[in-house]
Structures are given as structure tokens and as C-alpha cells.
């Protein structure tokens, strides 16, 4: 089968790889019909995630058809077309039982701080991902969810990560009716976070980014106030204080993570020298621009261990900081309902369709933000 193949920082290709096999009685093999490149794949692509081994296949956002099941799979059958959450979770451990499906303790032997994610380095379990024609799906009784009849596959594939992550970002922000919510980052997740903030009753939603085309997009899609932090202001924190009657936002969402721009020191220490867990610019801005007693919600991906974060202000300002890998499975029932009712229209953010064979160009376009790319979908040869 054809699959994406990581060769080193900013070098990927498509190669013939062996078909995935059932390795555990609860496994299923899925033929991928839609797969996306995600912003968080760029951290892998740029070589910033430790233990990203050459030869692995990325891709944690995919839907597909079940073609084979293991002996203990009872909840799925061959032929089912399923949404596969990006987390791999067992449903039996201490954490899964609390609904913390992003924190499963029986899927990722390599680290305890992060759960298992398809195609997301060995730090996240060493699983091959879905940027391939076929993929192994463990714990098939728990995670995959059958796509309801009538749902567009383009909508379905965005329910594997982007929509639930934006939604959980808003949920974790603890929005109370009428609250002012600031979202840093107008990538796919930031766009969905802004959209979801309204669903939790926000009174005002403000998005900051540095790409005009993304601001334009989010302004129309979410809809919200959107500003360019490089052109419209000198200092984003001061700007937010100013436009919130000098109080700060009630809730701030960091939808940026490790590769933030906007601060030279952070860029050098976090992105170039890898001396900290990525550039902490967005989380700095979040902590400093939220109101005292406010809530900061983090869904931006940072690397492990050390980070230069203004933790002193967290104490001084009495903040609550929440973050997690999204428990996709927990949100799916509600979000499927929202999509079917037209409250959320995920597929509208898809801007590019790229044949799997041209994946290197796809990564380059998304990474360099060429051609106003917001969200690329990969087209599998077997599913065309």
C-alpha cells in the first residue's frame, strides 16, 4: 500500500509499505477514505517532537471503511464507515473511566504524560498514522464511531480532531454567558474554538493571528472580531487590555502552541535551539492578557518538559489554566448532532485537496501558508 514516509525535518515522501496487520484481538484495519494534514503535524514535520523516527507514517485525522477486524471486536463490522478519533484509548483504565480519553494509560508505553496518537512520533505511542491507504486501528470496540447516514465525509474527517479540539478549548475556557473570549491563532482549531465559544454563550469573541487571509476567513466563519497582531497593534497584551475596558479578557484560548512567532527571544530559544518546549509566545500573551481570576485554556501543542512561562503571574492573577489533548470520543455525540443540524459546518474550512502522491507539496504548502491554505485534505488513490 502507499503511505507517507518521514525522512527527516521538512523531508517526506510516499512509499510502498507493507499492509498493516491485526496485532491485538481488539484491532481493526481501516481503508482510509479521507485524511488530513494537521497543524500539529507541522511540529513533527519540522523535527521538533522528540523521538520522531525516520520511516514512520504521520496522520491522526482520518475516516475510512473497516476491512478487517480482530477476534475480540464486537462493536464494529467489516464494511462500516467510521470516524476514528485521533486518540487511541482503551476504555478500561483509570483515566478512560473518567472520560479522559486523551490520557489513556494502556496505549502509549513510551510516555506517561501524553496519551497515544496515530502517527505522532514514538513519544505518542509509535503508531503509524492515517496518511496512508490502510491503517491499523487499536481498541476498535471503543474509539471508532460509525458515520451517520447522510453525513459528508469531508465533515466527518474534521470530527476526528479539529472540531472537537476547538470545542473542548471553549469548554475548558469555562465560558459563562456574556463573557469576552480571546482566541490566539486562526488556524483550523482556532477557527473552531471561536465558533464554539458562541455555543457556550460568549458575549464577545476576539481572534488574533498574523495572516490576513486567515483573519478574513475566521471573521466570516465564526463570526468574530479578528485582528492582525503584527499590523494592527504594537503589543497584543496591551491591545486586549485596551479593548476590554482595561480589564482583560474573561477567557483566553491558546490555539497556537510551540511554533508561535511574534517574539524573537522565544523564536530563538524555543524554535531554533530547541532549548525549551517550543516558543512560549502564545501562552505568555494568554496569561498576561486574561483578566485577574480568569481562565486560560491551552490546546496549542508544546513539547515536553521545560518551558519559559510567566508562572508568577498565574499566582499573582489567580488564574486557572486548563489544557488537554481532546477527549474526542466524549464530544462526538454532541458534535455529530451539531453538524447534522447545521450549527457547525466543518467542511467549509477545507481549502485544498491533495493527492497522497503529492504529500511533500502538501506539507510545504500548509507549512509555508502558500496559496491561502487553511486546511488540506489528502485524496487516497484507493478512495478516488
Amino acid at each position, binding site marked *: 500500500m502507499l503511505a507517507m514516509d518521514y525522512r527527516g525535518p521538512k523531508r517526506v515522501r510516499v512509499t510502498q509499505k507493507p499492509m498493516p496487520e491485526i496485532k491485538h484481538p481488539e484491532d481493526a484495519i481501516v481503508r482510509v477514505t479521507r485524511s488530513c494534514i494537521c497543524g500539529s503535524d507541522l511540529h513533527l514535520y519540522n523535527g521538533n517532537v522528540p523521538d520522531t523516527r*525516520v520511516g514512520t507514517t504521520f496522520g491522526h485525522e482520518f475516516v475510512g471503511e473497516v476491512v478487517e477486524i480482530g477476534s475480540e471486536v464486537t462493536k464494529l463490522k467489516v464494511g462500516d464507515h467510521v470516524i476514528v478519533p485521533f486518540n487511541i484509548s482503551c476504555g478500561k483504565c483509570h483515566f478512560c473511566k473518567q472520560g479522559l480519553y486523551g490520557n489513556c494509560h494502556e496505549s*502509549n508505553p513510551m510516555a506517561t504524560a501524553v496519551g497515544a496518537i496515530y502517527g505522532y512520533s514514538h513519544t505518542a*505511542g509509535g503508531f*503509524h498514522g492515517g496518511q496512508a491507504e490502510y491503517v491499523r486501528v487499536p481498541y476498535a470496540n471503543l474509539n471508532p464511531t460509525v458515520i451517520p447516514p447522510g453525513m459528508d465525509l469531508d465533515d466527518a474527517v474534521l470530527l476526528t480532531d479539529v472540531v472537537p479540539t476547538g470545542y473542548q478549548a471553549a469548554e475548558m475556557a469555562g465560558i459563562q454567558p456574556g463573557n469576552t473570549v480571546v482566541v490566539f491563532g486562526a488556524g483550523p482549531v482556532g477557527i473552531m474554538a471561536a465558533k464554539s465559544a458562541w455555543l457556550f454563550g*460568549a*458575549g464577545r469573541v476576539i481572534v488574533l493571528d498574523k495572516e490576513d487571509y486567515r483573519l478574513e476567513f475566521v471573521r466570516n466563519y465564526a463570526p468574530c472580531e479578528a485582528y492582525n497582531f503584527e499590523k494592527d497593534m504594537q503589543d497584543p497584551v496591551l491591545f486586549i487590555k485596551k479593548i476590554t475596558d482595561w480589564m482583560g479578557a474573561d477567557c483566553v484560548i491558546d490555539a497556537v502552541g510551540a511554533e508561535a512567532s511574534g517574539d524573537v527571544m522565544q523564536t530563538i530559544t524555543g524554535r531554533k535551539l530547541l532549548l525549551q518546549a517550543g516558543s512560549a509566545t502564545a501562552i505568555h500573551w494568554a496569561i498576561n492578557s486574561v483578566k485577574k481570576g480568569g481562565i486560560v485554556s491551552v*490546546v496549542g501543542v508544546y513539547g515536553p518538559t521545560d518551558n519559559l512561562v510567566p508562572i508568577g503571574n498565574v499566582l499573582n492573577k489567580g488564574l486557572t489554566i486548563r489544557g488537554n489533548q481532546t477527549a474526542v470520543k466524549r464530544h462526538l455525540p454532541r458534535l455529530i448532532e451539531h453538524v447534522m443540524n447545521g450549527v457547525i459546518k466543518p467542511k467549509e474550512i477545507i481549502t485544498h485537496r491533495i493527492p497522497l502522491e503529492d504529500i511533500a507539496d502538501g506539507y510545504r504548502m500548509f507549512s509555508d501558508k502558500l496559496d491561502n491554505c487553511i486546511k488540506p485534505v489528502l485524496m487516497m488513490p484507493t478512495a478516488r
Partner: protein
Amino acid sequence: MQKHVIDPKSVPGWGIDADPENDPTYPMKPHRTDLEEQGYNWERPTQQPIDVEILHSNERPNVTAVFGTASPPQGLSGIIRRWAFRWSENEYNHWLPLILADRVNVVEGVLEDLAHGKFPNIWKEKGYNASWKHDRTSLILRLSAFTAVTAGLVLWLTSGDDDKGSRKKKKNKKKARYYDENEYYADDRYYDENQY
């Protein structure tokens, strides 16, 4: 600055998931029962047969019931990774060697290609076709900066004149710094940001 430019109630689905009891402690609070007193003591799923080398975090006593087998450790990078896994996730000694191993692994990947008679198509793997189509000017700038620096280095390394050595060194240093800045700005424009 105009405030409340959008009337929230005009947004489709506004407040649909608002809950006055919404407490930003989900899901911890409602589930904080005796469950958490049980510790590492749940009915574990069937163990996947461990037939490849799995490096597991020393912050857990065992290998998880299910694991990925994408690229088992091998070669020099594998040796470094095995060493890294002697340290906990709390230690630089764990993460920095893993990043080093990743770099070594890249070289191993190229050697492996060559051993199989395959020459990596760097232009294609780096997606320069897309840059050529949508971003030609900066691709050319980047490549010529790279060529200039490489040529400069080659000239310097092949120059045997000791007297001029120190001056040339300085000159090249300057060039290298110029290149770095250039690369930094180029990168900043491209890779940065967002992306969750």
C-alpha cells in the same frame, strides 16, 4: 474601538451548550469518587504480544496493553534512544538525547536509501514543487543564500594561504551570520505560528 460589533444572539446556535452549572473542572469533579483510590489497579485489556523492541517510560512498571510498532530502535540512533529511556520524562537526559537520536536517524535513513541503490529526491521530498509554483521568489532567495554560503565555505576550506587565513575567516563569519539572519526571517515568515 467599537465594542460588541456582533450581536451574539444573531449567531446560529448561540448559547446552545451553555450551562449555568458549567464548571471548568470537567471531567474531574463529577467523577471524583472512590475510583481514584484504586490506583494502578484496573482490569487491563489483553496484552499485545511483545515481539518487537519496545522502549517504555520508566515512569510506568510495564508495557501498555497495546502499542505501536512503527519504527523499532536500531543502529546508532537506537543505542542513543535506549540510553535516553533510562531517564524519566522529567529529565533533560531523556528528551535531549532523543532529539539527537532523531538527527542521527535522518543520516541513517539517507545511508539506508543509498544502500538500497536509491538516491533521495530532495527537491521532491522537500515539496519544492509547491514553493516553485506559489512562492518562487523566496525559494530562489533561500536556495541562492544556501549556495553562496556553501561556495564561500568551499573557497575558505580549499584556500591554503595561511597569511590570509584569519582575514578570510572573519569574512566568512560575516557571511555566515548574514545567512543565519536571512534564514531566520525566511523561516519566520513561513513556519511559524499557529497550528495547534
